[in-house]
């Protein structure tokens, strides 16, 4: 088993397509780092003047319309409270713009790394990039073996299919873990480089960020990379074709993640990206539309945000992985290898 596993790793490393993908990953990470540094640079010259003008316009608007904005907020809150008495828009917290808001150059390093809404390099961009690369590698590694017929040769050396299967999915999993590690490292270093290049310190906006948020996210991203590799390899054994697997990946991202999830909010908690985000960030929210008759007897709908915890995300991801692995194994046991 160890020999098989080592041979699989060696073979994957020597595959041209996989080397090119690894190179593409590094290139993408370098580009991302540069973009992050560029966008986080301090305001100067025209940008500073523009920011000043923007602030003045916003302040003037608040001066004129602030009271009506506040009133609109309270009316909307009152409407929602008819169906949900605990609902709040936090209208009292509304206040006019400040100069600092417009002139602030970049968020702090922890916000850049962890906040899904402000860059989220470690919890959003990193997993997206590495996940895509891992799935492509699985498609090429496994699909390529079926396509080239090399699997036939391999099985004449080791006919125990379960061993062959396990060694292959573990190898792809291991490669996935390495890719996730490298990506997470970049996604950690990129914000650090960005803030230090701008002369900002490594101060974080939340206390104990490195211990309570960064470390779990970093370690779990590696675990998630492994899981993604294993699940993708299992799926590749089911599909047995590189192009088909890539097609399904693209189709899933476009149809399910981008389009269907917007149309049917009820499936939001089944999205792989949402669950991955819950694992890495510790929690995430997803919108759910709730409809019903309010106190006035009217049919009304409102969007509420449900919270998904890390445990739920992990459980769902493991179930999906187990399904892929078992399906791939069962089919590989029975199928004729050509």
């Amino acid at each position, binding site marked *: 088993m160890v*020999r098989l596993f*080592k*041979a699989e790793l*060696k073979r994957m490393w*020597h595959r*041209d397509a996989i080397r090119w993908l690894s190179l593409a990953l590094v290139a993408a990470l370098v580009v991302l780092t540069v973009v992050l540094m560029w966008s986080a640079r301090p305001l100067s010259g025209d940008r500073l003047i523009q920011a000043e003008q923007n602030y003045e316009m916003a302040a003037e608007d608040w001066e004129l319309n602030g009271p009506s904005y506040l009133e609109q907020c309270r009316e909307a809150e009152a409407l929602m409270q008819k169906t949900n008495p605990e609902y709040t828009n936090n209208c009292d917290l509304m206040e006019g713009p400040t100069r600092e808001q417009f002139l602030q150059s970049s968020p702090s390093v922890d916000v850049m790394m962890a906040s899904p809404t402000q860059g989220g390099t470690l919890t959003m961009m990193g997993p997206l990039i590495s996940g895509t690369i891992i799935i492509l590698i699985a498609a090429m590694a496994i699909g390529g073996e079926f396509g080239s017929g*090399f699997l*036939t040769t391999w099985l*004449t050396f080791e*006919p125990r299919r379960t061993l062959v299967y396990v060694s292959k999915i573990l190898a792809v999993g291991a490669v996935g873990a390495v890719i996730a590690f490298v990506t997470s490292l970049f996604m950690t270093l990129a914000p650090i480089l960005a803030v230090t290049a701008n002369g900002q310190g490594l101060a974080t906006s939340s206390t104990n960020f490195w211990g309570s948020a960064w470390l779990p996210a970093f370690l779990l991203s590696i675990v998630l990379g492994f899981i993604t590799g294993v699940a993708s390899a299992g799926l590749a054994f089911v599909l047995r074709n590189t192009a088909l697997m890539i097609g399904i990946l693209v189709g899933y991202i476009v149809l399910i993640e981008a389009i269907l999830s917007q149309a049917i909010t009820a499936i939001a908690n089944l999205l792989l990206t949402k669950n991955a985000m819950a694992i890495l960030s510790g929690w995430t929210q997803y919108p759910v539309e709730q409809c019903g008759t309010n106190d006035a007897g009217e049919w009304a709908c409102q969007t509420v945000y449900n919270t998904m915890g890390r445990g739920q995300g992990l459980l769902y991801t493991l179930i999906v992985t187990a399904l892929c692995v078992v399906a791939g194994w069962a089919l590989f046991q029975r199928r004729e290898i050509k």
Partner: protein
Amino acid sequence: MTLDSISRRSFAIETRGLKKMYGKRVAVDGLDMNVPLGGVHGFLGPNGSGKTTTIRMLLGLTTCDGGEMNLLGKPVPKQLTQVIRHVGAVVEQPKFFAGFTARFSLELQADVMGLPHNKVDEVLEQTGLTDWADDKYRTFSLGMKQRLAIAAALLKDPELLIFDEPTNGLDPGGIYEVREAIRDLGRAGRTVLISSHLLAEVEQMADTVTIIAKGRTLAEGSVNEITGNRSSDLEIAIRDPATARLVLTHAGFDVRSEGRLIVVHGVADPANVGRALAARNMYVDHMVRRNPDLESVFLDLTDGIGIGEMAIDVPDAPPPPGAKRAGEADHPRSGPSLGPNDTAPADSEAAAESAAGSRSATVLAPAAAPRSNPAAAQAAPSGSRPGGTEGTRAAAASSAPSARPSTAQVAPASPSTVIEASARGWVPPPGHSASSGHSVDAAAGSHRAYPDSGLRSIEDGGE
């Protein structure tokens, strides 16, 4: 290699009643095969006859739907893992990653087997790939790819090598290289199973063969025995071929025209033909025996005649140790039984007439001797077993309920017996060999003897 020698030893590969279905389509239908240890064994059959499927089942690449298989004495797929280390195989085309070098491809496989990398150098040297060891597979010619596949198969230093259509797509040079490599392996004492539909290739390599069609075994034995058991044709050039044909047909010969030539089928004694013509003052310009090669035997076995027509009643005798006769498992014998020393049944002549063109009957029963060769039948007494027929086995088709293959060990006589006997009856001029593989140049009045290869084609025998 004869049946006796085969039966006394173990078989490298044995299958019994092997079956494989793809949906409703039967790919392998009760296949029985015995591949003796040592030497090259040809596995012949038309495209789609089930050769590759059989090999895939032996190697565990596909499941079988019935029957038994043994590799080097171990039942597979149950104990495949125990023997796979001793089996090297190339199934269909060589399959490696295009971007890997020959050396790296082999090193990966050596790693899996826990073999040192100097073994890789060794097999590269053996297959003449040392100079290309660090070239990528995608740059290889088909012949080199095939050699790399053979090198991979040799890595394990296997006792048994299985090559599926190894010369497919190769140019003549490549075919020669692969053929020589396979011959060398056989000479080195390894067992090589080579499946092919290229009969001339197999004929040049194989010591023994199994011929299959529609997933069933048709014949099995040594090449010489199988080809030797076929009656040969006689090609004649004569001044008035139309008249000659009439004369010979009238004399009871089976004659056909081929342009200006006439061909007399199933001639055991060319002298009889010469006499028949001379009696009408007709003298041949040129007479050449066309000895049957494996191809003609193969075509004869697999084309034209339905499987059921091959069914014959053959003497009942115990099979050699470890060898169950083809078709036995699925098709119990229902025809008349003959003991080892029994003579042919009383109605054998009628049976022989009906089976004159039948392959298995020709192989196994003296009664099947052509009518035009009565002397031959007399010269082949029941129970005789000339050495040349040893080991030849023909499998009766499973579609025939009465089919029962027999070993030549117990066959009363064989066509080669017939041919040889009749050859003895023909008195050639001094210096002329009566054995197969000779020509008579009547016009020149000279006779030349050819080495008795038993595999000679018309080109070989002609001028």
